[in-house]
């Protein structure tokens, strides 16, 4: 555990010693803030309009359904597709480029401890982004009265979604010495698994079901609605475990132990 924390601490410090952490947080805060503002403004305009019309025959518009849910549904996950590669690109690529991988792999720590340490370090930086998201959302509590319950599911969902991408991005980072390559490949891979569920739009066989099930988006919708489904939970945990396992295999291969 001490080894894991030492590596996690090192990673976190590296993020904050370089511009990466600030850049990532700023990009996220700007995008998230703009989306949040747009949804809120739309909501406000719509509700005024409805009141002016007397609200006859109109459904009850809640903040949860018209601001928070669309924020999670689709929008934040897309921002993460862009931002997570920036976090994971350096995890192994930088160690390989600078030769510090030799230090890590010749230290009396297991590969697993290094991998989990790195993953935790990245996860902590990602955690700041969840905090930023909920800082925006918490302002709604000052001016309105949204329901707090779905927020828990949404937070868990965002966390698992991001953590899955982090694990896969870390794996991709083991293949190259070049951070830019790691970032580009990660982004492409994330985008692809993100849109995998599109196949259901034009196909309905077993394959399309499987592909749709594998898509990250399919399993995020439940969380965005405020529902924690065991199936979705299992899916994300599996992806995280898979990412860590693949990273371990890849690190083994680095040692010529194929």
């Amino acid at each position, binding site marked *: 555990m001490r080894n894991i924390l030492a590596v996690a601490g090192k990673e976190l*410090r590296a993020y904050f010693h370089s511009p990466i952490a600030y850049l990532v947080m700023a990009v996220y805060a700007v995008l998230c803030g703009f989306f949040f503002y747009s949804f809120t403004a739309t909501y406000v305009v719509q509700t005024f309009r409805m009141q002016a019309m007397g609200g006859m025959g109109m459904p009850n518009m809640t903040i949860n359904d018209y601001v928070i849910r669309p924020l999670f549904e689709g929008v934040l996950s897309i921002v993460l597709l862009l931002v997570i590669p920036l976090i994971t690109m350096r995890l192994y690529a930088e160690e390989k480029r600078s030769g510090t991988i030799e230090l890590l792999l010749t*230290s009396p720590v297991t590969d697993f401890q290094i991998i989990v340490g790195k993953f935790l370090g990245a996860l902590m930086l990602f955690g700041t982004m969840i905090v930023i998201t909920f800082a925006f959302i918490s302002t709604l509590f000052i001016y309105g009265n949204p329901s707090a319950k779905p927020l828990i599911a949404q937070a868990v969902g965002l966390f698992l979604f991001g953590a899955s991408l982090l694990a896969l991005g870390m794996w991709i980072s083991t293949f190259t010495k070049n951070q830019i390559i790691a970032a580009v490949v990660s982004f492409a891979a994330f985008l692809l698994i993100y849109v995998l569920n599109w196949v259901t739009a034009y196909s309905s066989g077993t394959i399309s079901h499987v592909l749709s099930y594998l898509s990250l988006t399919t399993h995020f919708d439940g969380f965005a609605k405020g529902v924690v489904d065991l199936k979705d939970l299992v899916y994300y945990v599996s992806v995280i475990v898979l990412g860590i396992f693949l990273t371990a295999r890849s690190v083994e291969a680095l040692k010529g132990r194929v």
Partner: protein
Amino acid sequence: MIEVENLTKRYGPTLAVSDVSFQVQKGEILGFLGPNGAGKTTTMRIITGFLSPTAGRVRVAGIDVAESPIEAKKRLGYLPENPPVYTDMTVNEYLAFVGRIKGVPRGELKKRVTEVSEKCAVADVQHRQIGKLSKGYRQRVGLAQALIHNPEVLILDEPTAGLDPKQIIETRELIKGLAGQHTVILSTHILPEVSKTCQRVVVISKGTVVAMGAPDELTARLQGYGSVLVTVEGPAPDIIGKLQVLPGVNLVEQVESSGTRVTLEVHTEKNQEVRADLARTIVESGWGLIELKSSGMSLEDIFLKLTTKDLGEEVAAHEALPAGGIEAESVN
């Protein structure tokens, strides 16, 4: 302390290291000598557990590196060719981090960091960012890193590369000072380094061990290819004729002649002392013996001879032609 047995490493079809075996005794400094690309780094990486061998085994302090890597790594300090430093950390932060992952107890960490920074002369830059340090400092930070957990075994890959002459001498002294308490393997392609710091040398070329022994021993063993230079006042053909037939003499060649003086190179058989015989023969024949000296091979010659074997044999074959004698006659 370190046992390397029949180590082989293949990268696809390329054989990087082939059947390398050697042992290092406790407290010894072993020099790993070879041209670039000979397989030094690969061998060292296998010893440290960074790479796994295709075949063969390595034991460090009796522990098999492949079987219990963690236990073996606790006893190893390793300085790769490029010091493995995080450029965004300060020297202190870096050494503390390395100490933590190398298993230095929390209570001793601060003390160890101070100790190794002083030992490796990086204490004056302890709060500076490593990325802003010169190559010499980085190299010494790398060395400090290898020492932080006070390992029994130190593997140093070209520890003096990129240092200025003064730093090279300091680093050599530092490494020498480590012998005794630590067992050291250091690699280099710089020859004086070996004769100055190492008690034993393994010469490696194209992935195989071509020679092993103490620096003096190696020189002595190859002395056979060496020769005696003798300057005599007298008729060259007669002298060559007479010296050629002495026991232990392989070949006599004329190196230069000025007036009545000739300088001859007498190639001798392995481990044969012919200088006394040469001197007696020359003096008894009534010629003037001006100079007689053994032209022992330097480590450099041996190195070249061993690592460029094919070339060396070609040259030797060419020299073995009776050209020496004929040439000497035609000159006079």
